[in-house]
């Protein structure tokens, strides 16, 4: 029997892709035949038009327009598409979906996502508290509302370089107050305040993508070391690894928070070998297709959990498998573009330009 899964994050941009297309690709390779419905926010979200992985594309109202509008749109689409599972995967929409999850469940749309409380626990400005509870180190983090902090911070035990981060996206290393202030204004302009200051630690970043089973267990995980970065600091090549300490941190995180759903742990191994927690993302990362590549298809696993199916215990994934990301152009007819622009969906009518 086939199922229908709605996936967000269709913004598969070359320099900084959303995870949706990779999740769709994983689902297309799962053992259950899956129809994937892509939910995007912009008419130029490329994955909406990727017929190989996304069967049908629709637009959603922006998260900043509120939950009522979002719910109304999802209801409308559910009536037509009969979603079995919905996988949100953008940071800025997670709170909305967490709050809507019970309503969606009442309509028969299953999600497998953390609740509002769990989301707040891993919020970037609370990272030090959480890290303490898990028992791992983390860099000092402070929420900043005014740029003049960066001129006076050295008297408060801060040192340059430091990281300036948005509450949802974006991070910039700043070597002096001027750079930090510039980064503050740029990030605040896009994502609002607070902006976070985080002390900078030199070392090597390692990442883990996984699924928390909601009962304190880590149902599956894939670990990766980035091997090459884009201008925006996103990995465009990486290699699977197996790091027991990283895995243990993720297990501890799931045990402490009873995490439910996809997650990405970003950690840093400093020059002395110490491990620091840098960030926890409450959803799958864009490199999630590597999980299918190493034989541990995490989106498939998440769908199984959402549907309440039995799991086969996961086996350790092999180290040494690479991913190298490439850009590809989708060819889009004016009719398809017209439909997305005018109706917010692909393939509604045969438009004038078909």
């Amino acid at each position, binding site marked *: 029997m086939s199922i229908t899964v709605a996936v967000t994050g269709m913004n598969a941009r070359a320099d900084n892709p959303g995870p949706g297309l990779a999740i769709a690709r994983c689902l297309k390779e799962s053992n259950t035949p899956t129809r994937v419905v892509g939910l995007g926010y*912009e008419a130029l979200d490329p994955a909406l038009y990727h017929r190989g992985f996304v069967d049908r594309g629709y637009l959603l109202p922006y998260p900043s*327009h509120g939950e009522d509008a979002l719910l109304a*749109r999802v209801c409308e689409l559910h009536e037509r598409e009969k979603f079995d599972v919905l996988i949100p995967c953008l940071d*800025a929409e997670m709170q909305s979906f967490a709050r809507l999850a019970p309503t969606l469940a009442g309509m028969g749309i299953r999600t497998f996502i953390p609740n509002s409380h769990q989301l707040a626990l891993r919020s970037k400005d609370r990272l030090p508290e959480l890290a303490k509870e898990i028992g791992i180190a983390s860099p000092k983090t402070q*929420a900043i509302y005014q740029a003049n902090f960066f001129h006076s911070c050295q008297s408060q035990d801060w040192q340059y370089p430091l990281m300036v981060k948005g509450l949802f996206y974006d991070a910039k290393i700043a070597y002096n107050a001027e750079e930090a202030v510039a980064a503050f204004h740029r990030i605040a302009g896009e994502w*609002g305040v607070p902006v976070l200051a985080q002390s900078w630690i030199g070392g090597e970043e390692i990442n883990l993508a996984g699924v928390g089973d909601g009962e304190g267990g880590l149902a599956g995980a894939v670990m990766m070391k980035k091997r090459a970065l884009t201008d925006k600091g996103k990995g465009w090549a990486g290699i699977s690894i197996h790091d027991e300490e990283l895995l243990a941190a993720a297990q501890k995180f799931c045990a402490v928070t009873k995490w439910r759903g996809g997650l990405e742990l970003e950690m840093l191994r400093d020059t002395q070998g110490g491990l620091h927690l840098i960030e926890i993302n409450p959803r799958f990362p864009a490199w999630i297709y590597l999980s299918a590549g190493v034989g541990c298809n995490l989106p498939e696993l998440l769908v199984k959990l959402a549907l309440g199916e039995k799991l086969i215990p996961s086996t350790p994934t092999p180290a040494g498998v690479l991913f190298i990301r490439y850009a590809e152009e989708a060819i889009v007819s004016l009719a398809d573009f017209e439909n997305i*622009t005018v109706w917010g969906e692909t393939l509604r009518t045969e438009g004038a330009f078909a």
Partner: protein
Amino acid sequence: MKNITTKNPWVAPVIVRHASSGMNKFGGVRDAQFRDEIAGVSIAELVEKYGSPLFVLSEEHLRQSVRRINRAFTTRYAKVRQAWSYKTNYINAVSAILHQEGCDAEVVSEFEYDKARRLGVPASRIFFNGPYKSRGALTKAVSEGARIHVDHLDELALLEEVAAELGILNFPITIRLNFDTGFAENWGRFGFNLENGQAMEAARRIAASPNLKLTGLHNHIGTFITDPRAYTAQVGIMINFMNNVEAATDCTITTLDIGGGFASRNAMQGVYLPPEQITPTAEQYAEAICGALAIGLKDREQHGKPLPELVLETGRAVVDEAEWLISSVVANKRLPTGQRAMVLDAGVNILFTAFWYNHEVRPARPVEGIPEDTVLYGPLCMNIDVVRQSVSLPPLKTGDLLSFWPVGAYNNTQWMQFIQLRPAVVMVRQNGQVDVVRRAETLDDVEEPERLPADLQPDFS
């Protein structure tokens, strides 16, 4: 007889270019919804009867809002008082309802003090705050037994003189503190600083005075605080100072006044997420505050000290969502930049909070057509008169009504009589009746205090 046409209704033609981003037909959904009533009363009828622009209060919303905050705190802590922050909205009908609901008054000037007294509030239930209280004001407040919050050393000296003159011993007072919570920027301009020892110094001075005694601590961490943990930190620091000051000066603190600052469901400019996601509920604030009280005061009664009463000076969170502003479209314009503009009959003269909020703006009727990015100007002949820099609205005609919400906090007090007269404020009562609670201003209201020397009377004969 004119021929009965089957002509289509006319809507002005609109063309919008597709940009590389922001292209989403749902982009404007939030503001494209309409609102045709307030608390069950038709907006069109309100304007027909009371004119435009028009402020509309809802008694039901106001009472529910203050009750919810009250319930959130009283179910979590034994001694709670809410003091209504007059400066937020001191229209008598608003204050009166809140006093009926059990609120005390929190005032920050002699004018506000007199206003509360005239409304019948006993002085003992007035918290007198603020950085400037004249000798006359202090004399009145002390002799009537108001609860005075001292802001600085000069005021402390003046207060001591006043109490001595009145022959009063041990007049109970509260000092305002400022300190760093690590969450919001410290408002160091108000009160005595804790970290540098000013606050303890003030307490010692009070202890040394026969006329005064320290019984309360006050702090206000800031405004529109969306992280309840800021209050947890605040309460912890205040309790710590309470213990220190009691040990050092042998006083007993019976009041912890944590000020206000709770956010409303208004959209602060420069904040990405919608207000329903960032604004904590009354229960979340209460949990953070009362949780910290429970921890900090655990052993207090065993040490023979009373549990202090918790005072809240909530303003915005009580009243903001209980009031709307109705405004009419006066003109449609196309700016040289191509952006659409509308001129409204309400500007920043009466909607002062437009400087920092993106209010929810809704037409009063369902409107068809493509929403377009629009700038909303007020009626003032002043470049700063912008009530909304950018909002997506469908085509509207002159005379169409728009409602702005939430506008209950600070507009009816910070509005100004500048160029235009101020409009009426009406209240939809719980029984559905509409009462004018402040009539529209007239030219006479403005000119009444003026005196024109007789020889300056112009003669155009």
